[in-house]
């Protein structure tokens, strides 16, 4: 019970922080933390080998993005005005409230652990809000990672297939690869 409360609290704080922070290093670190929270939740249901696949693929993808950031030297993002931060905080708070009021109802549809459902929904909504707030390629990829982590936490509790785990791992790495490609991290031949 205490662990569940701690996990829920950390997931709320992490998603709040990722919406607010400007430095890409912090954002990547927070996505790493989100992947770790997902792993801790999934390991309670699944064998460690399968759960590890998700964690490793997620971290590999983030490492790939970090490498792209280092070599492509992203623009230094200037600090956004306070009003913008307040707006973003209010938006994510709205997301949390939405999850809080709807989680029990969702639990009637999806017969899984309440903690998994709550945290899954928090990530899911946060991913969507993140995608709505940031427009560039890498941030789109980070948003998708958060979004998919939320879905993964929920779906893993419903379906324990090794094939889905494998394909999901491939998807996560491919998404990061795409983000890296779009940011100029690597090229795939030229066009004329």
């Amino acid at each position: 019970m205490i662990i569940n409360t701690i996990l829920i609290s950390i997931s709320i704080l992490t998603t709040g922080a990722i919406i607010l922070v400007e430095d890409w290093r912090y954002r990547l670190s927070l996505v790493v933390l989100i992947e770790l929270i997902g792993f801790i939740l999934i390991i309670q249901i699944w064998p460690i080998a399968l759960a590890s696949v998700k964690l490793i693929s997620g971290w590999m993808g983030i490492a790939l993005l970090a490498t792209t950031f280092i070599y492509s030297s992203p623009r230094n993002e200037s600090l956004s005005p306070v009003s913008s931060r307040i707006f973003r905080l209010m938006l994510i708070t709205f997301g949390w409230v939405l999850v809080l009021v709807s989680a029990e109802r969702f639990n009637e549809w999806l017969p899984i652990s309440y903690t998994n459902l709550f945290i899954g929904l928090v990530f899911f909504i946060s991913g969507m809000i993140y995608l709505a707030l940031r427009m560039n390629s890498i941030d789109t990829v980070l948003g998708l990672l958060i979004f998919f982590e939320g879905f993964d936490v929920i779906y893993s509790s419903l379906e324990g297939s090794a094939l889905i785990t494998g394909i999901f791992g491939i998807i996560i790495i491919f998404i990061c690869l795409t983000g890296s490609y779009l940011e100029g991290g690597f090229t795939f031949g030229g066009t004329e």
Partner: protein
Amino acid sequence: MTGAFVWIILPLVVSIILIFTRRYFQISNWLQIATSLGLALLGMFSTTDLVNKTPLQVLEFAPVFNILGRSLVIDSNLRSFAIIFYFFLGFWSLALLIFKVRSRIVPLGMTFFALLISSLAVEPFLYSALLVEIAVIVSVIMVADTSSESKKGVLRYLVFFSFGVPLVLLAGWYLAGGEITPVNEGQLIQATLLLGLGFVFWLGVFPFQSWIPLIAEENRPVESLLLLIVMPVVIIMLLLKYLNGFVWLREYQSVFQGLRIFGLIMVITGSTWSFFEKNIKRLISYLLIVSTGMMLLSIGLGQPSGIYLAVYLVFVRLSAFFVLAWTFFIIQREEADFSINSLKALFFRSPAVGISSLIAFFSIVGMPLSAGFPVMQSVYAYLSASDRWLNISAVFSTGIISIVLIRLSFLVFSQTHEKNSQRISLTTIEKLFCILLIIFLVTAGLFPGTTLSGFEDAVNGFEFLVK
């Protein structure tokens, strides 16, 4: 040997080989053309259905390929579909060769098509959403022009398809549960809503259609149009597979009503937007939205004839937009102007290009004697019998597009001294290619039965939908 090995694994292997030989682009392209056309021909002379074998089908492939406890099933439907798709890729690659275009379609096109076919082949088919997502990611790399300032289109495409994946997977989980225990009304509504929303994201139904014109505008038409032509066709086939596979989904009346409404929304929004559009690339993308909407309208009829009409519309889509894509490539090669004014005096600058573009446009809208005419006319007839207002709305929308096309025709045949002198230079083989395209579209319009009957096999296997 299994069908999945031939039409999924083999193309993937060839695609990987092509990555390494890509430096020698011409050779790689030839290899891709040979493989694609070879796979299509192999499909014509082989079968995966040993019971209904024809004398022409001299080769036999096992339909089921097992992998990690799941199966990739190439039935007669999917074999026909693979034939269509590999022919399309083969001819698209041939056009790349003729027009000397270096593109990432070689080799990623083959990976993309193999993944799309695998998404239709996987059993249990709730896994298809994941394979669609991988295909989407590959297509982003294939299409995205990294030199382009804005990448909004591909990013939105990636995001919207990713949003659709959880919805379709969850719906699949619900529906799969329903195969074991009966599903109550509430669960059915939830599953239908999830599935519906997933397909709305995937098909680009208003208001989630913004990625379609953006992709067309921001990227080269050679890659972007291949994606925009093919992707919705696969999603439609996936939808048919879901409808055929789950008994209470197809018996739930709201499903077909929903399809009709979504189809109508696409037709109306696509035609309205196209009326105000000045950019050719965006205009084509709106016509693609209308084409997808028409397919949904046909399926929404909830009759076997509607399913056949949808697949006939696939033929019109593949053929007419193929011609349009390459016609506009030629125009773009001459001048980097994408406004509709670039069509001014097109007929006098190059009669072959002017005529092929007009015939393609008229096929899309279903003008008499064009390839689209018999199909569109049947769609209107069935819509009229089903719901008069639906038919009036669809005809009105097509009327709007017709006005756009008449405007374009005036431009094509308009004479301006300045433009007339700017002749479009085409090599002999390029001219021949354009003339062959014109002959193909005209023949398809004059003898629709011969061309359309080949497409029926792609849906004949959906026994609960077509019988």
